[in-house]
C-alpha cells in the first residue's frame, strides 16, 4: 500500500522459462519498437544535440564550431539568468507545497460529505481546465492596481488599501505563485480525494473506538497512507514548475524589469527572438542538469536501491 515502485520482472530461474518469456515478450517488444525509436532519436538525440550546440558560438543557424565554456561563463554572469534561477526555486517551493496543502485541505473538506459535493468538486477543479494563458490574463486584470482588486476595495471606501504586488519588483513573483496555486490546487484535490476515498472505513471506526481526535487521524494515519497520491501529485506539479512559461508571458512578460523571468522563458527568448542559439542551449542544458540532479537521488532510492535489496 505504501509504495508504488515499479519492479523489474523477476529473474527467470530456468531455460524453459526463458524461452517462454522470449516468445511472449517478442510481440510486446515489437509493438514498443516505434516508441523506443522515437524516444531514442527524438528525445535523447535532441538532448545531445542541444548539449553539443551549447558549446558552439551559434547565433541564428546552428554552427558546429568549438566555443568551450564561454556560453556558460556568459550565462552565469547574466543577471537575467540568475534571477530566473532564483525565481524558479521560489516558485517551485511555494507552488508545490502550496498546492499539496490546499489540495489536501480541499479534499478533506469534500470528504466530510458536504451537501453539493459535485458542485464544489467542479468549482475547485474548474481552474485546471483553463489554459495558463487564460489564467495569466485573468489574474493580470484582477491584480492590476488600476483595474482590479485594489481599485474595487478603494471604490468601496477604503482609500488607503494597497495591493500592488503585480507591479512591485519584489513581490511580483508571488503573484505568479498565487495564479499557479489557483490553477493547480484543484487537480491536487482530485488526486487526494481519490486517495481519501480509497482508505478503509474500518480504520476510521478503529480510531473512533480508541478515541483518537479526528485531526490526529488525518495527520498520523491518513497522510502516511496517502503517500503514493502525494508522490503522484508532486511529480505532476514539478513538471509544471520546470515548464513554467506561458503563465509568466501572459501575466507579466517577465516584468516589472526582470523580476519574474523564468529559465524556460530565457531559453525561448534566446533561441527564437534573439538569434542566440548558443546561449539559449546553454541555459537549456543547465535546466536539464538541474532536473536530472534533483531526480537522480529520488530515482535511486525508489527504484534502484529497493531492487538491490530484493535480489
Amino acid at each position, binding site marked *: 500500500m505504501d509504495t508504488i515502485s515499479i519492479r523489474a520482472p523477476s529473474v527467470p530461474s530456468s531455460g524453459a522459462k526463458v524461452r517462454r518469456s522470449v516468445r511472449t515478450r517478442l510481440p510486446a517488444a515489437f509493438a514498443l519498437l516505434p516508441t523506443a525509436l522515437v524516444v531514442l532519436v527524438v528525445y535523447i538525440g535532441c538532448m545531445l544535440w542541444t548539449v553539443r550546440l551549447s558549446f558552439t558560438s551559434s*547565433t*541564428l543557424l546552428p554552427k558546429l564550431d568549438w566555443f568551450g565554456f564561454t556560453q556558460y561563463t556568459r550565462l552565469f554572469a547574466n543577471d537575467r539568468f540568475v534571477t530566473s534561477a532564483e525565481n524558479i526555486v521560489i516558485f517551485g517551493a511555494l507552488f508545490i507545497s502550496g498546492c499539496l496543502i490546499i489540495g489536501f485541505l480541499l479534499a478533506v473538506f469534500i470528504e466530510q460529505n458536504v451537501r453539493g459535493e459535485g458542485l464544489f468538486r467542479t468549482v475547485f477543479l474548474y481552474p485546471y481546465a483553463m489554459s495558463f494563458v487564460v489564467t495569466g490574463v485573468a489574474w493580470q486584470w484582477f491584480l492590476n492596481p488600476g483595474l482590479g482588486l485594489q481599485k474595487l476595495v478603494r471604490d468601496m471606501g477604503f482609500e488607503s488599501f494597497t495591493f500592488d504586488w503585480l*507591479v512591485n519588483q519584489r513581490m511580483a513573483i508571488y503573484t505568479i505563485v498565487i495564479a499557479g496555486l489557483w490553477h493547480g490546487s484543484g487537480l491536487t484535490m482530485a488526486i487526494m480525494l481519490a486517495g481519501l476515498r480509497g482508505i478503509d472505513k474500518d480504520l476510521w471506526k478503529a480510531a473512533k473506538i480508541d478515541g483518537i481526535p479526528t485531526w490526529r487521524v488525518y495527520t498520523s494515519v491518513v497522510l502516511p497512507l496517502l503517500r503514493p497520491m502525494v508522490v503522484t501529485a508532486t511529480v505532476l506539479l514539478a513538471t509544471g514548475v520546470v515548464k513554467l512559461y506561458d503563465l509568466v508571458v501572459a501575466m*507579466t*512578460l517577465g516584468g*516589472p524589469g526582470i523580476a519574474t523571468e523564468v529559465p524556460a522563458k530565457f531559453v525561448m527568448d534566446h533561441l*527564437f527572438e534573439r*538569434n542566440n542559439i548558443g546561449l539559449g542551449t546553454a541555459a537549456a542544458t543547465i535546466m536539464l542538469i538541474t532536473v536530472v540532479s534533483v531526480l537522480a537521488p529520488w530515482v535511486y532510492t525508489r527504484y534502484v536501491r529497493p531492487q538491490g535489496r530484493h535480489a
Partner: protein
Amino acid sequence: MRLKTRVSAYILAVALISSSGALAQQKAEVLHWWTSAGESASVRVFADQFTKAGGTWVDNAIAGGANARTAGINRMVGGNPPTMMQFNTGKQFDELVSNDLVRDVDQQAQAGKWRQVMPKPIVDATVREGKFYAVPVNIHGQNWMFYNTKIFADAGLEPPKTFPELVASGEKLKAKGIIPIALGGQPNWEHNLFRAVVVGHGGADMFRQLYGTRKPDVVKSPKFKETVELFGKMRGLVDPGSPGRNWNDATALVITNKAAMHFNGDWAKGEFIAAGQTAGKEYGCTVVGQEPKLVIGGDVFVFPATTDKTALATQDKLIQVLLDPTTQVEFNKKKGSIPVRMDVDVSSMDTCAQKSHSILQDPANQVESMEILSPPNFSGAMQDAVTQYWNNPNMSADSFIEKIVNAMRDAA
C-alpha cells in the same frame, strides 16, 4: 549515352509543359505576420494589386513576428520555401544571405533606380556586398511622440521640443493629476522610449555608436551619462499601472484624455484612427529633440532562392507590384507608415505622414533603427539592461552603463 539524352529531353519537355502551364496562373505564397485589423487591410492592398496583375495570391499569415520568421526560415532550410517572405528591415535575414537561401534582386533594383529613390539607411540595410537581397516596402518612424492637444491647451503648455523641457512640463502635468507619459510597461516599449531619448538628447551619432559600432567609449562619455539620468527622471512621469501594460492600452490613455504624451512608432496612429480621431485635431505628433531626427525602420520582403522559372517570373511580378507608386501610397495609408520611395506624392496622406516625409527629405535626419544597426543578441541584452534600470529606481546610472559595457562585450 543515348538513353541519357532521351531522358533529359523528356525531362526538359515535361519541365516546359509544366512551366508554361503554370505561367498562366502565377501562384505566390506570401508568408508574413500582418494579422491585426489595420495590418491585414494593408496587406490586402498588395494582394488585390497582384490579383489585378494576373497572379494568384496565397496568403500565409502567421501571428507574431518571431513565430512567422521561425516558420519561414525552417521552410527555407528544409527546401520548401514560400514565394516571398516578410522580414523587418535590418539584420534578421543576414544569415539567409550568407547561406545563399535568398535571391539577389539587384537587377530589378538597378532598373527601378532604388538607390536613388529610397533613403540611404534603408538601402544600406537591404544591400549585402553591393547587391539588393530584399525589397523594402515602407518606412516606419519609431520615435514619434503622440500628444493630446486638449490636455496641453488646457494646461497652457506647448508640446515640449527637447527632453529637459519634456521633464519640466511633465512635472507640471503630474501636479494637475494627469498622467504625463503613457507607457506600455513591457521591456521592448521601455527600450523604445530609451532609444527615443538617446537619439533626441544624445544625438544621431551617439545612437549609431551605441547600437552600431558598440565601442564602450561612447557610453563612458559624460553626455551619455546625462542622457541616462534624464531617462531615469522620466520614471516618475508614468503611472503606477504601467508595468505589463500593452502598448495599445497606453495609446488609449492618450485617446481618452487620461494621459498627455505617448512615445511610439507611427503604427500607433491606427489606434487613434480606429477611435475616430484625426491627426492635428485631437492628437498631434512630433519628434522630440534639438533637431528632429527620425529613427527609421520598416518591412522588407525577401525572395527565397529558386531555379524554377515560373517561381522566378512570379517573384519578378511581385516586386513590380510592391513598388508601384499607387500601391505604395494606398498600402502605407493603411499601414501607418510612409512610402519607401521618396519620389511619390504623399499629399493625400495625413499630416503625421506628411511630416514624416518632409523630415526625411533631409538625409541628415535619417537615422537607421536598432534593428538595422544591432544583431538581435545585442539588442536583447540592451533590453534586459534598460528594463532593469527603468523598473528599479535605486539603480544608478553607473551600474546601468556597466551593464551596457558587458552587453557590448558579450555580443562582440
